[in-house]
């Protein structure tokens, strides 16, 4: 067992545990907290695969900004009534379970076969060695993907202007 594999399994157990905790805990804050840990572990997976930039962007964007805003909203709105969050309808519960199972089966049918071949895969760190550096990503963004990149920034600008308009309608 290599050290990478040991780190992976440790992280994987935490990841699954926190992923379940996101939907299983009744308190909204604890759910958000579990999601924070889950995102952090996801960043660790990126590091493990040799993609440092993607991992750090994951921490930056999701943990540093988005989840802080999530927590901010949860606290400000005082979401915390566990009773409202409990599902009681038996039929709904069964339907949700069946749908979840179907989705799981779909996912597994696609994932299991490649996973069984992982022994033959090349070392991810050598595959990603030159691809995921800041220089490579930057060069890609500003040459080949320049148009989608700029269009996305316009989209974000529209989002910002729209949210200001909604918040300050009277001005």
């Amino acid at each position: 067992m290599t050290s990478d594999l040991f780190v992976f399994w440790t992280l994987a157990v935490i990841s699954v545990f926190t992923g379940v905790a996101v939907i299983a805990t009744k308190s909204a804050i604890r759910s958000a907290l579990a999601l924070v840990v889950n995102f952090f572990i996801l960043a660790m997976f990126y590091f493990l695969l040799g993609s440092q930039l993607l991992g750090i962007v994951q921490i930056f964007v999701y943990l540093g900004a988005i989840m802080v805003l999530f927590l901010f909203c949860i606290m400000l709105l005082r979401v915390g009534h566990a009773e409202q969050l409990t599902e009681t309808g038996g039929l709904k519960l069964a339907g949700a379970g069946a749908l979840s199972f179907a989705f799981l089966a779909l996912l597994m049918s696609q994932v299991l076969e490649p996973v069984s071949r992982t022994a033959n895969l090349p070392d991810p760190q050598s595959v990603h060695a030159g691809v995921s550096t800041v220089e490579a990503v930057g060069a890609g963004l500003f040459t080949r993907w320049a148009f989608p990149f700029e269009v996305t920034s316009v989209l974000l600008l529209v989002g910002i202007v729209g949210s200001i308009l909604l918040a300050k309608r009277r001005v």
Partner: protein
Amino acid sequence: MDLNAVLAHPFWGALIRIIIALGFLLSIVPFLIWWERRLLSWMQDRIGPSRVGPFGLLQTICDGVKLFFKEEIQPRGVDRFVWMIAPGIALFPAMTAYATIPWGPNLQLTPVANVNIGVLYVLAISSLGVYGIVLGGWASNNKYSLLGGLRSSAQLISYELAMGFSLGTVIIAAGSLELPKIVASQLEPFWGSVPWLHNWFILTPWGFIGGMIFLVSMVAETNRTPFDLPEAESELIAGFHTEYSSMKFAVFFMGEYAMMLVFSALFTVLFLGGWSPLPVNLTYLADHTSVAWLAGLLRFLESSWIAGFWFIGKLVGGISFYIWLRATLPRLRYDQLMALGWKGLMPLAILNLAAVSIWIAFGIVPGLIAAVAITVLFLLVTMGGLKKFEARSVTLLDEAVPLR
């Protein structure tokens, strides 16, 4: 066993680097707390802790022991799990953010991990510091604590942007995100033409502006005076740590100081030339002097043997700056805090970034023209803004409008 072989080993080398970095961080924090109390006392014409040990140096240790044995009071209605782990979450980024900061030229000893995203790593990890404060404030089941936590999150998000843009200028100018490379680019000839001076970024015009923005932002990021609104004692008792006592309070306290240390180290590396003792290139002077002992001395001062001490000296200088601010400035009002971050630092940082980008892309002459144009533009805009800022009076009661 050969020392170099041990240091080059992927596991043992990393372990040694971690022990050096963490040991330094943990052992210097008590000294810093003593230094803060002592320096603050001198600035305020007091004496400060002077009884325990020489110059009162052991005072922090005693306080630590006292906090350790104090009764821990847990208020009713706290979210116990979150309340318990919040101080740990606050300490975690402070301990890990130090991993990519180099304190000397020897890459086998420092930094812990020399990754090609060094600056981004420190910035990303340090932005996690808000979680400890926000969660601690929420879990305490105290409205003042909650307000402190909310203020902290809003403040951090606001000042992170200006800080990121000011870091962007350094990254563009140095052409790398790797911290040792950023230091190396500061050891080159001054403005590319004066060989006996180092090119410390704080001595360049854009670096000076960027450095000042970074300095203000880092004080805000660490929740220190004059930006200590999350724990404003005149309004919020003690803010997010009102309900924390005993060791949990000590851990919060320690996290704050470790964070100050990390940001001082980052400022040193990015703007103050890292481990080089002076902006003057001593090795160059040593090459051009005929006095043998002077040349030897100059070479020794800039050698890698004592590079770490210069770095620590600059760190202590940064911390002293924090303390100086605390002794001098009153706390900002909340709207002033937001106005400074969004209307003052942000535009300045973006314009600075634009000027540096034009300089790097099109050469020095267009860069200078752009810088002058941008300065004039910025002054014109801020003059108008400042007048409005001064004339502005805050109506507290009429501004709240119900949601429709």
